[in-house]
């Protein structure tokens, strides 16, 4: 029994063990530091010694600045392309680039060409199957994408930053983000596609059609203003808030959305243009109070008039009672693509201003 408080145990084993711990901690720091360095400055996709899959890029590369400001070096006229958004699939299809597409998002794959959008022979060309689908919503199936061996990925901003980073850095496949910021951005994207697929003449022709449609709407608006005609107030809803939800109502377009831009271009005033949220839910009372002259409801994708008619106060809306509620395929209103300008805009114009030449 030692009464001596200072009886320190022998220390031979201490230094060795501390040394081991210090070594482990230093190793951890070194590993983390090295990895962070490579993460910041990706040198080369660590594909290992196998033949890299993306060396044969055809005639060469071209640098393109995409819609989020990234400058990406992409192969010219890539023969294997993954298109991960319906809004990109639309111009691709219109430019005759369908044969280049090897992978698509499951949404594009599922709807298989809308008769509303395209002529029957175009629809037959569409031919996208579920085996080509590699992305559901924002969830990308990287393995399925890789197995399609694409040389280029075209995506909207729905793709996650992490996935973009992974595809471009880890696998060395360039990713171009095409998400037009405004209606005129749709023309810019068509030009980008024309450039990277050597399809400038097709792109010019598409853009000419787009410009004509936009110009026509502007002219109509000018004429109406000159004549002192008031723009009608409208509600454009693309979906009812599902029945049974705590606050049923109607999803609509708020400030800064393509839907609102399109409505304004069609010389009408949206009742939700100044909402706080980009995609506000309008209650029945709000619609009653705003008394829109026209109501446009989105159809297709499993939605029909009956779904809207179950919404709050639907039958009391003056637009409904006066027969000014019209169904329009949602695809013409929701995707920022050429279809929106070529079909959606004239459709709205003819609804809001019947008789005015389009």
């Amino acid at each position: 029994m030692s009464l001596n408080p200072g009886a320190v145990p022998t220390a031979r084993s201490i230094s060795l063990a501390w040394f081991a711990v210090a070594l482990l901690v230093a190793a951890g720091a070194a590993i983390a530091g090295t990895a962070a360095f490579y993460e910041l400055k990706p040198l080369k996709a660590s594909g290992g010694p196998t033949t890299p899959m993306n060396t044969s890029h055809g005639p060469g590369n071209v640098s393109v600045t995409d819609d989020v400001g990234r400058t990406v070096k992409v192969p010219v006229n890539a023969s294997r392309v993954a298109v991960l958004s319906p809004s990109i699939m639309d111009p691709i299809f219109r430019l005759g680039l369908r044969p280049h597409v090897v992978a698509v998002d499951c949404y594009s794959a599922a709807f298989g060409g809308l008769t509303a959008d395209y002529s029957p022979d175009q629809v037959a060309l569409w031919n996208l199957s579920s085996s080509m689908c590699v992305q559901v919503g924002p969830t990308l199936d990287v393995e399925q994408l890789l197995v399609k061996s694409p040389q280029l990925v075209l995506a909207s901003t729905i793709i996650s930053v992490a996935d973009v980073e992974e595809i471009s850095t880890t696998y060395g496949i360039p990713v171009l983000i095409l998400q037009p910021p405004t209606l005129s951005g749709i023309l810019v994207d068509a030009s980008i596609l024309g450039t990277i697929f050597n399809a400038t003449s097709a792109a010019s022709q598409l853009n000419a059609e787009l410009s004509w449609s936009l110009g026509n709407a502007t002219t109509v608006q000018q004429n109406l203003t000159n004549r002192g005609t008031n723009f009608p107030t409208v509600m454009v809803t693309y979906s009812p808030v599902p029945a049974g939800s705590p606050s049923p109502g109607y999803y609509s377009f708020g400030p800064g959305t393509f839907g609102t831009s399109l409505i304004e271009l069609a010389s009408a005033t949206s009742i939700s243009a100044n909402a706080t949220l980009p995609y506000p839910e309008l209650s029945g009372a709000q619609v009653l109070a705003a008394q829109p002259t026209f109501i446009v409801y989105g159809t297709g994708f499993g939605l029909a008039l009956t779904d809207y008619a179950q919404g709050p106060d639907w039958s009391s809306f003056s637009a409904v009672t006066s027969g000014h509620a019209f169904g329009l395929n949602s695809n013409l209103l929701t995707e920022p693509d050429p279809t929106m300008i070529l079909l959606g805009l004239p459709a709205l114009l003819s609804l809001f201003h019947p008789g005015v030449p389009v």
Partner: protein
Amino acid sequence: MTDAPSSPATSEILPVRLRGVSVRYDHRVALHEVDLTVSPGEFVVLAGPNGSGKTTLLRVILGFLPVAEGVAELFGSRLDDLAVRERARLVAWVPQDEAVRDDPSVAEYVRYGRYPYRGRFETESAEDLRQVRGALEELDLADRAHDGLLSLSGGERQRAVLARALAQATPLLLLDEPTSHLDIGHQLDILERVRLLSRRRGTAVLAALHDLNLAARFADRVVILSRGRKYDDGPPRDVLSEELLARVWGVSADLRRDPRSGVPYLLPHHRLVEPAAVRSAPGFGPVHVVGGGGAAAPILRWLVDRGYRATTGALHLLDTDAETAQLLGLPMAVELPFAPLGEEVRAAHRVLLGHAQAIVVAPFAIGPSNLANLTDLEPYAGQVPVYLFNPTPIESRDFASGEGRRGWEKLRSGGAQELGSWAALEAALHGLEAGRRLPSRPSPPAATPT
């Protein structure tokens, strides 16, 4: 500042040396200028009523509480200068009630005591094993070494705790009520062992004990604490006296001496303050007081002072009335603070009401949470005398939007008698007691003399 009388040599480094130590919790003074020494091999018992500062003193020595004033030294080093680990090699602690949640084996648990001797990367030394084995054998736990701690009986578990402290191989051992959960046999067992250890190993022992007879039997020296101050300090035969018990504990007792050993022992009789007197008195009652918020307290005191047996309810815990009743040792029905009176509490209250010879309704504030106190009275209004003591009008203390007043009126129309002054209340109760108009009923169990 003198050393303890039994200290063999004043020049020796003392295990414990406190000089003028004061400790505060927030603003309350828990210890006030306490001097204390413990010498090597000495068995010192700290005694004193609840709240006198025994545990606080132990916690100071363990370094859990900062010393506000004074000097505290452990083996010649100031407490603040000792690292936790160093201190653990000097002093071991056996708490009153050690929480054991996971279930190490007894041996594993006793090994914890070797913590301060082992570096982080050291394996168990031969000395560690020797100490652990020694502690297990010393406390007769060797054959239970591989059993789970939770499978031990209370006595065995306390022995395991002692073994754990023993494995710490400290020259000082602190015990805080180490036997309070044990029966008399195990109490003696544990203390015998501690004394034996102290003798054999020269370990200084400082133990807080409730039982003064155990203290007298085992202690070399007894230190009496009262209200945070040291009251007395010396060998049991000098310190323990009838006067000490009366002054510090408020208990009347006889002091006898063990004819064989000469060790003093105390035979307590009764508490010198009210509750014991009430219980032993054959007084009239029980008189049940319905109250709350301090309204019943003066009535309860008055009843107890006059030798009535009293009960009360249904109160909320921490309420002034509940505190008073607790202090007076009265049976009562209590609910958790601020909760509406629950069914269980109301049932308990009805039991008390059923035993009552008379019911006094104190002028308490009636709110939604205690409205049931009035409504539950209704069946008794015609059965026993119910006195509505009403020095302040009912309207002024009805916070149950008129419900209180309605309940009050209902009682009055049911046969309850409204009394406006103390004098009237006193007269009514005296008259009742004198008349014994009602056949006596069995009294509630808690109110019977022990």
